[in-house]
Every structure is written in structure tokens, then in C-alpha cells.
């Protein structure tokens, strides 16, 4: 197996766990899935690092591991414990249809990227449609689910997709950009957590469709 | 010719069956007259060689079948179903006439012979294609034009439903095949794709509605829709090949379709006759009232089970062979280098897989509820085996099911002769090889099966297991009653019901059924007991609702117009007349050049 195949394989797993996010109807399980998904992302980045030998990619991989596999899931677990809501009971679109729509999204992204030409050195061509699919799935999670925590997870999934595209298609983004993104995501997740807690205390619930009563 | 073979086979078996079944009716001579002329009219349809005779015999066939449907005319429900049937049929005929007209305008002849490879524009072809699809599709019962089928089949006498389902709706398929392979040649690829799409949707939805039924004959009627869908899938995939210039594969796919047509005539005829026998003895169509019939009517049950295994496409019976052909032709479809086809055809194939699995589930339900377990009502407790002629009729079909399943190559040889004029290639040599009992598509090396080999292997294994058990096992058998969780009361109502059996699927696909569930508390008569509860669930066919809604809208639109014009004042009516006259005069004078 060549290096690009290893990367493609690993990124396929990232996609599988993104789809599994759609499948899950329990918050704990979603967070766990997110952690595993990020773990595969880490693997993908480290493979690139070994292949290209850039030192900053090692640091990126390490940071991904610390922040996305350990810190954010830990934080979200705490949050779920604190607000005491553990299940996504009624999403806007039921899980069965969500899964089918996801299938269509993946199809779409493969069709879409068929004709796109990427300039510059490409390590793994197939990762591009996969990461587009992950981004779309992330957006779809944010659209279709009600609970604020799942929406955060959707956002994080989206971000993983961007990360995958950025690091694995070519040999990584400029280091400073990556650091910036990490910081953004981490702080974003932290703030969203605090906000969810506030929503919970004022609405007794974390269904975001209740927020629409704020508009008046 | 091939279709006449199908007609005659089934007609023979059904006629033998009818000898006994006639006892059911009062008006025997009328029935005999209608019945025989019905069969004759079907043959007339198939052998007619120009559009005019075709339409006439088509009408004769429709009207006769209408009379047969409402044969037991004293029942209000029968009349209603008959009405819907005749309405839909004529709607279909209207579209057929439209399609014929297009052909007539473009070729200037009513002879089918002159229509061969008609040289007409693509637009005309498209409309001829669509109208033919709607017209014949109504007769064949494709979605969403199927609504007459589950109404008309159950109320007709069972031998007639066997003929209607087995043969009459096949005449539509026959004409479709002629249309798409003889008249409209050189078609764009998406014609075939549309047929394939409609076929797979019909197949899947047909079986899913069948699953929710507990009227035995209506369930079988829905299965007709399913099988028509499978046949259309074969035709569609064949059309795809034709438009891409792959005659061998086209022949193969058409073989799949025609083989399934024959098989469907056999097993659906058998099942309707079996249902008729059960009906004959129990006088109810409700499956919830059957049960335990396997001990009371052993041969009927055996034949029914053979039919069920065939229709569920399980080896070694005939349904499996034709469904296998269909799978193979769908796989071959992916060789066509069009991305849409390549992506969607496997999806259709998995829909076919789902259809097959649901059909199996459905027939487990039918057999399990009607033939196994305890009798659920007095009527089924008193059932006895039916007469000799009825058994012979069913027996012929059952034996044919087995023979077709085990020696498919010989049958395929016959069918390929029918296909030869359509695709110009004799594919008999391409599908059979290795000693005549292995089926393979040699052109593409896709796969092969040998039903005979399967059967022999099965027998060998059976003998092997039997010997092993005789040698090592304990062959003592003790009879004891079924475990009832420690309760000692025997109540046949504690058995699983037909409604309960399909409940998971109803719940999973609630969108299609729109189930209305309610628990009705029957009045509390005894003070210290809990109120009696009744569970009711009403299912509906979404497409029927849709069509009703559309016709409803349309009618109310007509009424609205009528309301505007019919005011009830005679002067205004006179005014309308003169207005019309004036407008017509103006039109004639100014627009069409008047009298010069």
C-alpha cells in the first residue's frame, strides 16, 4: 500500500464516524463518536507528517489529539452531566431519512469533485470528496438537530472536515493558520458550552428551536 | 405465440379447477358463457394484427372481465369495485387510443405491420411512449395507476381473479413489449430508464402494501403489482441495452422479463386458486379468521406453500430463476457507460432485493396465519379438503412451478424463440452451456446457477443428515402441548395475528400507510372488571388517497364552473346560447376564412 492509500483509508474512517454521528440518538454516544472521529483525523495527519517530515505537522497532530480527542469531549461530557439531558429525542428530520440524505450528500460531493482540478502537489486525491462530504454532513447535523450540544458537534465535525482537507490533500496549511484554528475551535467550544448552560438554566431545555421565542 | 402458450397453460388449469368451483354460484350457465368468452377474448387481443381489431377485442376483454368481477352483483362492495375497475380501464383505453392515433398520424396505417420500426420524430416517439405506458400501465397495474387492481381482484370469483391476474394484465405487458421493441426502435436511453424506475417503484410499493393486508385475495392482488414491477424492470433494462446497441444483453434481459411473465402466470394462478379453495370452504376472505388449515386441507396447503415459495423467489422453484435473470441483467446494465445508469441501477437492484425479502416476509405471514397454528374461527374449524378437480387444477400449476424451477434452460430455449424476432438474436446458445443444466451468460462471464444441482445437493445433504441422526441421535418423539407460559387455558386468540405480524413494518414505513391506530374501550358492563378494550388500526393506500384527492379537486373545479353558468334563470341560458352562436360565427368568419 502506498502512502496515499493509507491516508485515504484513514480518512474513509473519519467519514464513517461522521455518518455514525447522524445515526446516534444519544448525546454521550455522539460525543464518543466525535472523539473517535478526531482520533482518525489525528492518524491521518500523523501519516502525512511521517510522509513529508515537516515538524509542524507533528505538532498539529499532537494538538489535534490533545484538543479534539481529549479536551473537547471531556468538556462536553461534563456539560451533559451538568445539564442532565442525555438524548436527542425528536430531531427535525428522523434518523432514517437523515441517513438517506447523508448518503445523497456523499454521492453529491463525489460527483461534484469529479471534475475539480487541484493545482499543486496532491498527496491523496480521494480525500478531497471525503472532506467535502464531512463538511456537508457537519452542516446537515447543525440543520437537522434540535439540541444545542448536537449542533456544536455538527460544527466540530464540519471543522474536522476542513482540517482533513487542509492537511491531507496537500502537505498541510501554514502553521500559524492551524494554531489559529485550534485556538478558535477550542474557545468556541468552551463558549458554546457556557452558553448552553445558560440556555438550560433559563429555558429548562436545550432545544434550540425554543430560542425562536426570543425574537420579539 | 408465446403469450398464447401462457394463456392456454393457465386457462387449462383454471378450467379444470372451475369444474368444482362452480358449485359456489347460482347462475352457472351465465358464468360458463362469460368465462369461456373471456378466455377467447384474451386470445383475440394477443393475435390481433391491426389497431382496430386490437381495440375492439381489448374492449370485449375489459367488459367481459367487468361482468365477471361483478358476478356476485348482490354485494354492494362488488358493484363499487367493479365501477372503479371499468372507470380505470376506460381511462387506460383512452390513452391507448391516443397512442395509437399518434402512430396512425405518423405512419398513415392502422396495421401493426406498418408500424414496425416506424420512422417518426423523437417528440412523437416520446408521446407515443408515454401514452402507451399510461394506457397499458393502467391495465397492468403500475404505480400509481394500480388502484383498481386491489379492489377488483378480491371481489371477482377466485378462478376469474386467477385468470385476470395471471393472464389479462399480461396482455398489457405483451403490447408494451411489442410497442417498445417492434414499433419504437432507436429510442434514447432514458426511455428504458423510466420503465426501469417505474418497475422498481411498483415492485417495492406493491409488496409493501401487500404486507399490510389481511384480506387474502387483496394481498395477492397487490403482489400482482409487485410482479408486474419486476417484469417491467426486465423490460426496462432490456430497453437500455437496445438503445446502447448491445443486442445479446438485451435479449437476456427480455428473457428475464418474459420468463417472469410466465412464472407469474403460474404461481399467481396457483395462489389465487389456493385462496379460492380456502374461500370455498371457509366463506371468508379475512385472514384473521383462518388458522390450522394445514391439517384440514393438507393438499391445498401443500400447493399453496409451493406457490408461496415460488413467488418469494426462493430456490429451487421457478420464481428464483427469473429473478436471478433479472439481477444478472441489472448487473450487466452497469456495463453501459452512462453514470446515471451505473449509479442508479444497483440501487434498483437493492430495491429488488428488498422486494424479494418483503415478499418472503409476506408469505410467511400468509402461511403462518392461515395454514399453521390453531383455527381462529368456527368456519375454519369445519373446513375440509376440496374436490378432486380443484386439486387437479392446482396440482398442474404446482408441478409446472417445480419443473420450470428445475429445468429452466429448456424453458429459456422456448422463450428465446419468441425473443428472436424482437432483438434479432437467438440467445439460447449464449445462456446455456456445460451439459445443458447450467445457466450462464457466456458473453460477459457474470455468473451461473444450476437449480438442478442445487436440488440434488439438497437431497444428498438431506440423506446425509438423516443417516447421521439415525446413527447417533435419539429418534424418540413425544407429543405434548405447546408451552403457554404456564397458563392452562387454550385460546386460539392468543396466537400471533396477521395485523401483529406486519406491525413492525407498518410502523417503520408509516409514511406509506398513514396508519390510524386507536384503542376503543367497549362499555364497562361488569363493575369489578377492567373495561374491555379493542384495538383497531386502519391503513390506507397513500396513492389511492392522492388520486381521490386529485379527482376530488377536479370535480369540485367542474362544479365551481357549473355553478357560475347554471344560475337557474332561463333568460340567461338563452343568452348563453346566443352568445355561443355569435362567438362561433365570429370565429368562422374571421379566423378560418369564412365561406371562401
Amino acid at each position, binding site marked *: 500500500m502506498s502512502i496515499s*492509500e493509507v491516508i*485515504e*483509508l484513514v480518512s*474513509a474512517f473519519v467519514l*464513517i464516524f461522521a*455518518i*455514525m454521528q447522524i*445515526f446516534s*440518538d444519544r448525546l454521550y454516544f455522539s460525543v464518543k463518536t466525535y472523539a473517535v472521529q478526531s482520533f482518525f483525523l489525528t492518524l491521518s495527519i500523523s501519516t502525512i507528517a511521517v510522509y513529508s517530515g515537516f515538524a509542524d505537522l507533528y505538532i498539529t497532530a499532537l494538538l489535534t489529539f490533545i484538543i479534539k480527542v481529549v479536551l473537547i469531549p471531556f468538556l462536553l461530557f461534563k456539560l451533559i452531566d451538568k445539564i442532565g439531558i442525555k438524548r436527542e429525542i425528536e430531531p427535525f428530520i428522523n*434518523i432514517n431519512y437523515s*441517513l*438517506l440524505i447523508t*448518503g445523497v450528500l*456523499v454521492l453529491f460531493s*463525489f460527483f461534484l469533485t*469529479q471534475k475539480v482540478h487541484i493545482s499543486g502537489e496532491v498527496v491523496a486525491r480521494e480525500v478531497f470528496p471525503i472532506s467535502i462530504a464531512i463538511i456537508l454532513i457537519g452542516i446537515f447535523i447543525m440543520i437537522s438537530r434540535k439540541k444545542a450540544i448536537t449542533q456544536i458537534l455538527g460544527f466540530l465535525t464540519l471543522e474536522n472536515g476542513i482540517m482533513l482537507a487542509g492537511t491531507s490533500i496537500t502537505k498541510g496549511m501554514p502553521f500559524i493558520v492551524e494554531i489559529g484554528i485550534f485556538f478558535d475551535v477550542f474557545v468556541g467550544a468552551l463558549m458554546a458550552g457556557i452558553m448552553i448552560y445558560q440556555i438550560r438554566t433559563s429555558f429548562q431545555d436545550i432545544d434550540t428551536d425554543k430560542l425562536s421565542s426570543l425574537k420579539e | 405465440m408465446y403469450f398464447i402458450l401462457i394463456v392456454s397453460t393457465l386457462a387449462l388449469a383454471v378450467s379444470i379447477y372451475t369444474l368444482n368451483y362452480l358449485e359456489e354460484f347460482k347462475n352457472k350457465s351465465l358464468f360458463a358463457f362469460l368465462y369461456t368468452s373471456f378466455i377467447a377474448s384474451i386470445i383475440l387481443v394477443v393475435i390481433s394484427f391491426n389497431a382496430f381489431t386490437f381495440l375492439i377485442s381489448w374492449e370485449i376483454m375489459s367488459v367481459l372481465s367487468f361482468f365477471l368481477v361483478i358476478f356476485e352483483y348482490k354485494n354492494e362492495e362488488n358493484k363499487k369495485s367493479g365501477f372503479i375497475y371499468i372507470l380505470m380501464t376506460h381511462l387506460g383505453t383512452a390513452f391507448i387510443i391516443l397512442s395509437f392515433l399518434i402512430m396512425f398520424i405518423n405512419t398513415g396505417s392502422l396495421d401493426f405491420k406498418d408500424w414496425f420500426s416506424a420512422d417518426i420524430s423523437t417528440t412523437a416517439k416520446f408521446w407515443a411512449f408515454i401514452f402507451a405506458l399510461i394506457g397499458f400501465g393502467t391495465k397492468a397495474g403500475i404505480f400509481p395507476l394500480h388502484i383498481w387492481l386491489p379492489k377488483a381482484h378480491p371481489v371477482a370469483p377466485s378462478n376469474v381473479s386467477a385468470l385476470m391476474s395471471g393472464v389479462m394484465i399480461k396482455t398489457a405487458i405483451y403490447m408494451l413489449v411489442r410497442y417498445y421493441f417492434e414499433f419504437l426502435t432507436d429510442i434514447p436511453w432514458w426511455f428504458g430508464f423510466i420503465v426501469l424506475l417505474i418497475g422498481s417503484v411498483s415492485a417495492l410499493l406493491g409488496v409493501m402494501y401487500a404486507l399490510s393486508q389481511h384480506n387474502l385475495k387483496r394481498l395477492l392482488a397487490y403482489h400482482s403489482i409487485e410482479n408486474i414491477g419486476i417484469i417491467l424492470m426486465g423490460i426496462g433494462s432490456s430497453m437500455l441495452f437496445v438503445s446502447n446497441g448491445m443486442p445479446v444483453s438485451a435479449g437476456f434481459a427480455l428473457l428475464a422479463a418474459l420468463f417472469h411473465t410466465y412464472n407469474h402466470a403460474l404461481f399467481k394462478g396457483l395462489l389465487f386458486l389456493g385462496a379460492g379453495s380456502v374461500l370455498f370452504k371457509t366463506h371468508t376472505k379475512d385472514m384473521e379468521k383462518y*388458522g*390450522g388449515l*394445514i391439517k384440514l386441507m393438507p393438499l391445498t396447503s401443500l400447493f399453496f406453500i409451493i406457490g408461496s*415459495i415460488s413467488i418469494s423467489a*426462493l430456490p429451487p422453484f421457478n420464481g*428464483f430463476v427469473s429473478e*436471478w435473470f433479472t439481477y444478472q441483467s441489472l448487473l450487466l446494465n452497469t456495463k453501459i457507460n452512462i453514470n446515471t445508469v451505473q*449509479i442508479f441501477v*444497483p440501487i434498483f*437492484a*437493492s430495491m*429488488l*432485493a*428488498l422486494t424479494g*425479502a418483503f415478499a*418472503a*416476509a409476506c408469505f*410467511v405471514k400468509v402461511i*403462518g*396465519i392461515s395454514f*399453521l*397454528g390453531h383455527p381462529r374461527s368456527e368456519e375454519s374449524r369445519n373446513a375440509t379438503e376440496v374436490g378432486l378437480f380443484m386439486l387437479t387444477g392446482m396440482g398442474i400449476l404446482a408441478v409446472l412451478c417445480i419443473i420450470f424451477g428445475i429445468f429452466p434452460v429448456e424453458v429459456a430455449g422456448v422463450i428465446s424463440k419468441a425473443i428472436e424476432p424482437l432483438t434479432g438474436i437467438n440467445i439460447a446458445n449464449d445462456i446455456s452451456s456445460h451439459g445443458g443444466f447450467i445457466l450462464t451468460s457466456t458473453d460477459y*462471464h*457474470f455468473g451461473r446457477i444450476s437449480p438442478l444441482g*442445487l436440488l440434488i445437493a439438497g437431497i444428498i*445433504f*438431506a440423506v446425509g*443428515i438423516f443417516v447421521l*441422526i439415525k446413527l447417533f*441421535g*435419539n*429418534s*424418540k418423539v413425544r407429543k*405434548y*402441548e*405447546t*408451552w403457554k407460559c404456564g397458563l392452562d387455558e387454550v385460546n386460539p386468540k392468543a*396466537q*400471533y395475528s396477521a395485523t*401483529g*405480524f406486519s406491525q*413492525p*413494518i407498518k410502523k*417503520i414505513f408509516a409514511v406509506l400507510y398513514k396508519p390510524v391506530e386507536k384503542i376503543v374501550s367497549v362499555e364497562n358492563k361488569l363493575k369489578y372488571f377492567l373495561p374491555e378494550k379493542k384495538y383497531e388500526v386502519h391503513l390506507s393506500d397513500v396513492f389511492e388517497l392522492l388520486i381521490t384527492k386529485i379527482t376530488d379537486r377536479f370535480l369540485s373545479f367542474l362544479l365551481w364552473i357549473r355553478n357560475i353558468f347554471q344560475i337557474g334563470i332561463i333568460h340567461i341560458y338563452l343568452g348563453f346560447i346566443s352568445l355561443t352562436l355569435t362567438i362561433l360565427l365570429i370565429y368562422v368568419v374571421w379566423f378560418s376564412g369564412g365561406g371562401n
Partner: protein
Amino acid sequence: MENLTIGLIQFFILVAISPLIKGFIHKVKCYLRGQKCASIWQGYRDIYKLLKKEIVLSSDASWISKVAPYIVLISTLITASFLPVFNSHTLLSFTGDIIAFVYVLALGTFFLALYGMDQGSAFGGLGSSREMTIAALAEPALMMVIFTFALQTGTTNISEIFAKIHQAGFSQFPISSVFALMALLIIALAENGRMPVDNPETHLELTMVHEAMILEASGRDLALFEISSWIKLTLFLTLASNIFVPFGLYNETTFVSVILGIVFFLIKIFLFAIPIALVEISMAKLRFFRVPDLMTFGFVLALISLVVYYL
């Protein structure tokens, strides 16, 4: 002659190790839970014990009950003889391809479900209803996976599919394979009544599917049912392991290579049994109406694997 011998050996190995696989999965689960556990040979003892016992047949049963156990076992045995285990020469590969494989197995399920309905017990009906629902929902995903491989290799003959995959090696379509593998795992769990779909270890009314159908079976009937369900599990594991780890001396027929092939196969199949044990101890049983979601998940994965192959 040589081919026939190899075919027979493959068939017997497949049948013979199936109780061992079942014992092995159980053992792994016990080990991970920290329990003491029956020996991995327990399957053989159970079969022997059941064969020696008399049958208690319900007085309401018809001939279906007498025939069904045999048909179920025969259908699994026929499929077992289609499947190349470690060598391309199978016993009956000329009689059936991979579509026939699925449908012959379905024949077994059909009669198993009829058996459940035969005694007029409410449990049996419940089991049959659920089993048919699950089997039906798993079917499209299974067909999709099969289609993916049939298209990749250009044939539906199982021996040839395996031969081509062994030639090309794993790396031909890695992403496609990963998706297909995950889909096949889900389908295998569903078809064999394993943990997230059905619990093979309990007899609890609310949850049971497979066990409910054979609740009335006893003595040698039960033995036949049990062994056919184990063979079925082994079949799926063999299918997965041969498709996804296509290493081993597949096309040679010398004595040494056959022995090596058997060793390879045993290692592979035990490796593939471990994930099943892992899934079983780490997941709770799904609510019955969540099963369709799982099946859709499998279907979507299979679909993606097909699409990836094309584009």
C-alpha cells in the same frame, strides 16, 4: 479428484469449526468481562447432548415442524459448500453464485420463520415477525455490498470473486473496501441475530428474536437449528475475512500449501471473530425500532462504497 478432495476438506472444516467459533466468541466476551466461562469446546458438547435427547413435539404441530429443521440445516450446508474457504476449488461452486448464496440462505430463514408460526404459540409468531422484518431490511444492504464486489471483479461467481481479489490484493480500492467492510459487519450482526440487534444469550420475551422462533424446538431439532445458526455466522465471517484480508495461498493445490492455507484461514477467522465479541460487550441491545436506522446506516455505507468504486 484433487479438487473434489479439497472441496470436501473445505466444507468439513467450515462445518467443524463453527461450534468452536461460537465458543471462542463467548470466551472472549467472558474474558473481557472478567467472568469464568465454559470451555470453548462447549458447542460440541451441547450438540451431542441435544442429539441424545428425545424430541417433545407440540401436539398442534404439522409436518412443517418436522421438515423445517432439516431444510434450515440443508440450506446453510448448501451455501457452505458454495463458499471457498481457503482454496478456490469448492464443492459446489458450479451450482450457484453469490446471488444464489443469498437466496438459499433466505430459504432457510423462510422455513425457520414458518417453524416459529407452526405451533400456534404467541412467542413463535413474535419471533417470526421480527426475524422477517430484520432479514428484509438487511437484504438491500447485503445486495449492495455484493454488487460492489461483483462489479469490481466482473463476476458473481464466489470462487472467481475471491480469486480476483486475491490476485489484486487489498489495495485496489481501499476506500470502497473499508465502507463495504463496515456495511458487511452491520449486516452480519443483523443476519445472525448478534448483539445490537438480537441477544443470543437470553430468553427474555421482550427482546428475543431468533430464540423466540425456536422456543418450541427440543432434542435433535434444536441441535439442528443451533448448528445451522453457528454455521451461518461462520459463513459470514469467512466471507468477510476472505474478501478483506485476501492473503494466503489461494490457487495452489499442493499438500503443503493446503495445510498452510488452513492455518492462515484459522488465524484470519479468529481475528474476525474478535470484533464481534467487542461490539457485543460494548453495546446495549438496540430498541427494536432503532434497528431500521442501523440497517439504513449499513445501506448508506454500502452505497458509498459502490459510488467510490465508480468515481
